[in-house]
């Protein structure tokens, strides 16, 4: 009995781990992760192993490549999955109204944060431990120095701490899991790449400032070899994979010392995130339901209105906004006049907020790049695509799952509106959003097509002729945008119907799209393993089973394997045009089933033949 007094009690952690262990989903996700991870490693290692049939011993000493692949994959897994794992840690309690109950127990806010943080870290560790057999295999092959080994693992652990802390901070600050989820990725991106972008563009003289700091630091011992050559190194201080790449070349204790030195900023950021999580936990524990985007737009409205009331303009209104009530399409009315991502005025602001930086960046890139392919524009396009997928996933999956979460779906379903009509009206707001998102995508595509055309005039004998073919590029891009946007909308809408909770629907939608993009490459691995003599070129068109492939290939103009630009374009359009029709059909044909109500099966009974109810009219307006 005395021993019990010395036991450490971590009730919240125990609860988290027990819940995790009781969920069937945990094991399914872990298995899928293991398959993906081992598939990726196998795929990456295949090239090294395939050329060694004549001399199997040549594989010895090649453990380094496998080790590096594994570490980079683990970094990717942490950046991709850990925000999703941690962002719900506090918001879940807020959504279930159980955070208040936790706060009135003897658990202090810091204990709550730390136990929750630990719980999610353990989850991620169980994923990372799947890499241990690969680690052992790579180490046994040789080529991995102990310093590299320690550096890699240490930086992995640090990254895990940092990303998990950011997720917990977002979870502590925001009210809902969805907003915490989006914020985790947005702030994660800004944390890792914001300084680099600011450095490259010299925003607010950040580049000059960093160069000055670099000049000071490069003279310091330990740092000199790593900072001197690249002036922008300091802008990547919080990005561990970069430092793994820089430091893994060295060996010995010195390398380990530098790694620990480099890890100070990452550790500091982790502590800052945890301190702020603690700060916000109680202060933001009981937040009223609020639409941040809508509130932002409304406050902008009032600011603009105040500015407009001056001596010159005197509150002049060019286009009067009428408060209209729904007429024939009430659901479409609500989607397009009451939602922040559906209202014309607010969508116009989103468009401006996206379009102005895009135009600015296009001009900036155009004035600085001498190549046919502009890397900055390519990156910008991919970034906008990412944003488009995120916004569509949030808005399209929420169409039905949002109604379910707010308990309004049942009421809507008892109205005499057909399932197809509900869907058509619901999608109206997302369609408007797609139109707004179309503009920045088109801007970059048109810019790139124009740039290719201009470059072809100046330098017609380019090494890669595909880089100058502006017309196939333009048609390919336009077709991709034209097909992908509605396809994604219907796919996400379908997921939103299938998955009950709004948060799970959004997370599932993003998970599905990420998996869809990478799965064809993973699935290729067992084919190549089982049949080493398999001709890779015979299945090259299989690449297009991933929707991201054509976008990437078209942007970097890598059509050499295909010998033509039109073949891939046709195949890709055919596949995803088909997918679009399939998703649309699935949504329309099974709408009542997915919504969970009886469908009419085409039977028609004339209402006039019904028995009259003979009741007294309820309303004076009928009399």
């Amino acid at each position, binding site marked *: 009995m005395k021993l019990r007094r010395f036991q450490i009690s971590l009730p919240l952690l125990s609860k988290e781990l027990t819940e995790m262990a009781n969920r069937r989903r945990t094991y399914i996700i872990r298995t899928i992760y293991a398959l993906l991870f081992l598939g990726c490693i196998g795929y990456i290692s295949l090239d090294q192993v395939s050329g060694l049939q004549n001399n199997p011993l040549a594989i010895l000493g090649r453990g380094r490549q496998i080790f590096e692949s594994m570490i980079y994959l683990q970094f990717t897994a942490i950046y991709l999955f850990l925000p999703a794992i941690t962002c719900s840690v506090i918001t879940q309690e807020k959504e279930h109204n159980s955070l208040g109950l936790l706060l009135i127990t003897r658990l202090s806010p810091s204990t709550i944060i730390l136990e929750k943080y630990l719980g999610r870290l353990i989850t991620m560790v169980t994923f990372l431990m799947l890499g241990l057999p690969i680690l052992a295999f790579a180490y046994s092959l040789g080529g991995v120095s102990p310093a590299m080994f320690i550096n890699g693992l240490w930086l992995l652990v640090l990254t895990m701490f940092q990303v998990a802390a950011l997720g917990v901070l977002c979870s502590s600050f925001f009210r809902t899991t969805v907003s915490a989820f989006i914020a985790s990725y947005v702030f994660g991106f800004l944390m890792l790449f914001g300084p680099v972008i600011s450095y490259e563009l010299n925003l607010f003289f950040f580049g000059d400032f960093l160069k000055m700091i670099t000049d000071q630091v490069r003279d310091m011992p330990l740092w000199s070899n790593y900072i001197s050559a690249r002036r922008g190194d300091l802008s990547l201080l919080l990005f561990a994979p970069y430092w793994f790449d820089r430091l893994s070349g060295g060996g010995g204790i010195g390398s380990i010392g530098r790694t620990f030195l480099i890890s100070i900023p990452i550790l500091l950021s982790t502590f800052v995130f945890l301190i702020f999580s603690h700060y916000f936990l109680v202060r933001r524990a009981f937040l009223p339901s609020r639409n941040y985007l809508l509130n932002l737009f409304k406050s902008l409205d009032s600011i603009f209105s105040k500015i407009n009331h001056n001596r010159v303009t005197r509150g002049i209104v060019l286009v009067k906004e009428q408060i209209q*009530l729904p007429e024939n399409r009430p659901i479409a009315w609500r989607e397009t006049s009451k939602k922040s991502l559906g209202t014309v005025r607010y969508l116009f602001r989103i468009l401006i907020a996206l379009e102005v930086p895009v135009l600015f960046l296009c001009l900036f890139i155009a004035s600085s790049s001498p190549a046919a392919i502009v890397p900055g524009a390519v990156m910008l396009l991919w970034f906008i695509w990412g944003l488009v997928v995120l916004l569509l996933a949030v808005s399209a999956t929420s169409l039905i799952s949002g109604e379910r979460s707010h308990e309004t779906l049942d009421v809507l379903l008892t109205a005499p509106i057909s399932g197809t009509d509900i869907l058509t009206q619901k999608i109206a707001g997302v369609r408007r959003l797609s139109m707004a998102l179309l503009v920045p995508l088109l801007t970059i595509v048109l810019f790139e097509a124009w740039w290719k055309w201009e470059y072809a005039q100046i330098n017609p004998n380019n090494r890669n002729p595909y880089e100058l073919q502006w017309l196939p590029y333009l048609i390919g891009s336009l077709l991709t945008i034209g097909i992908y946007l509605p396809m994604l909308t219907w796919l996400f809408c379908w997921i939103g119907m299938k998955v009950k909770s709004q948060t799970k629907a959004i997370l599932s939608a993003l998970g599905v799209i990420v998996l869809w993009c990478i799965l064809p490459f993973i699935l290729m691995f067992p084919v190549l393993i089982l049949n080493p003599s398999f001709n890779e070129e015979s299945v090259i068109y299989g690449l297009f089973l991933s929707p991201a492939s054509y976008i990437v290939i078209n942007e970097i103009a890598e059509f050499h394997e295909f010998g033509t630009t039109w073949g891939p374009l046709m195949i890709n359009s055919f596949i995803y045009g088909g997918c679009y029709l399939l998703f649309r059909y699935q949504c329309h044909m099974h709408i009542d089933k997915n919504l*969970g109500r*009886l469908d009419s099966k085409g039977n028609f009974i004339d209402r006039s033949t019904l028995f009259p109810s003979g*009741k007294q009219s309820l309303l004076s307006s009928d009399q």
Partner: protein
Amino acid sequence: MSTQPPMVEVKNLWVRYGKYEAVKGISFSIPKGEVFGFIGPNGAGKSSTIKVLATLQREYQCDTVKINGISLNKAPHLIREIIGYMPDFFGVYEDLTAREYLHFFAAAYRIDRKKRKAIVNDVLELTDLTGKIDAPVDSLSRGMKQRLALARVLLHDPDLLLLDEPASGLDPRARIEVRELLVALKEMGKTIIISSHILHELSQLCTSIGIIEAGEFVTQGSLDHIYKRLELSRVVHVQIVGEMNGVCENIEAMPGVKSVTVQADRLAIQLQEDQLAVEDLHAKLAATGVKIRMFQAEAMDMETVFMKLTEGKTA
């Protein structure tokens, strides 16, 4: 000559969620203009049955489920036009005002545009929410939201109201307001199916009740019928002015009187109504020459009925 079908006709209804049987072959019929009280413990199958009638339950088996003579399976779209469903949660859009919310559903029910304004005003007046017409829904109290949900249900003047726990979570004042509203609807001849835990309120409202437990009906019928079947006696409170000499014995001797208990300021007379009606008791008392200051028959004690018939089981 055509006979009108019952408003609701359910025969051998089964609802299963996987292996779990929520409703086990219940049958009932509700004539037009009746107020049917669905009573049962949590998990008894009340909400599942109401969801079937509201066309929101895809998976169920039955011999017949008809509303106003229309088979539920054959024409759910027609059923939706004649029912008004109010779930056991608010189901209101918090981003709209009360006016916008009601106009939203008026449009959803395809009410003539010219009539909408008048109808919305009418239902708001009926639910006493006229003053809140431009208030955002999220600023309304629970009781107001519940009344707004009732206003929404009434917009298209449905023949059948399906009300799942309409008074749950409301304070006493809001409960009384909702109850008064339902009484008004009853007087207008609406057929109402109402599930509730507040048995006292149902007893004042319902013309018949069905007590359901573990997915099966324990009993159903009019309150009087159930009362008689269970041989439950009604208590009548009587205050008599003056001397009580021999009065108790006289009353006890009356046929149909089970017992007389002397309380601080009154007599509590247990009556078997099938033998002696309340009004006959009053006449007989007056005939004995006693001066009656108060004569009050207690409402049917539905809690006693409920406790006697149910065992607290769930399906």
